[in-house]
């Protein structure tokens, strides 16, 4: 199955990339843009058919590697059986 993981910075953690993007957008003629935060988006193919099991495993992956829980939150989404293209 396929899973999607979002990794985002916790509130209160400075996000230099997001800030720079916001600045650039303002400068490029998008004054309406306020706060910008940049995170990561990861798509994974997983050889597992049980969604609950998959979710538990993904949780472990996030804690072990995909997110740095000192500064980041993560969220997991199981997309379904379809093979990724």
């Amino acid at each position, binding site marked *: 199955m396929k899973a999607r993981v979002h990794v985002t910075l916790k509130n209160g953690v400075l996000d*230099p990339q997001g800030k720079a993007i916001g600045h650039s957008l303002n400068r490029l003629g998008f004054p309406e843009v306020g706060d910008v935060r940049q995170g990561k988006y990861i798509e994974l193919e997983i050889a597992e058919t049980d969604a609950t099991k998959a979710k538990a495993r993904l949780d472990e992956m996030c804690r072990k590697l*995909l997110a*740095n829980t000192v500064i980041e939150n993560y969220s997991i989404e199981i997309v379904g059986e379809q093979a990724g293209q």
Partner: protein
Amino acid sequence: MKAAVLVFPGSNREGDVAQALELITGRRPAMVWHGDGDFEKTDLIVVPGGFSYGDYLRCGAMAAQSPVMAEVKRRAAQGVPVLGICNGFQIVTEAGLLPGVLMRNAHLKFVCSDVHLKVETSQSLFTNRYQAGQVIRVPVAHAEGNYFADADTLKALEDRGQIAFRYCAPDGTVDGPLGKQANPNGSINNIAGIFNETKTVLGLMPHPENAVEPMFGGTDGIGLFEGIVEALS
């Protein structure tokens, strides 16, 4: 003194630090491959600079999970000194040996240049050759050296004297616009390097190993290595 330098796929300053250690200690350090969960007993473990695993995902994240780092954590807990430089700082931080995190430089660009550092304390095995307040000049070369820690962690670091080096102007100024200008990456409180609580683990972004020969970057980095040698022999 016997030192070990870890080598991960993508490490690239392991040669520089090995060369500096050999120059100063007269002894070639052991090079330890990342897959080796067990390696010879050594007096010092160096986690060198580079782009371990391409610095993909987060700098140091993948290397921090390697078998060799599990062993490093065990030995660090027993008091074996660990020196993490640049990517090594990122790795030991990701591995939990030091608090906080190294984020993308505030200007989002890689920066390679000489910087000035204020030595915050001479009371450590790494800094005993320097005076507290002394200014040294060494290079930095990184894209993610923007040290960050939450307010409580930061306060604890400051209160316990765990700050090792701060970026400063050539005259030692850390605060104000001069201090801000001297900071190459936007790190909080101009932090360039920190200790763990027992001051047996040092992580720093700058490269003292590239400042050990007069013609090749100056000699201000020698003190760090000499200090370690003295403390450990």
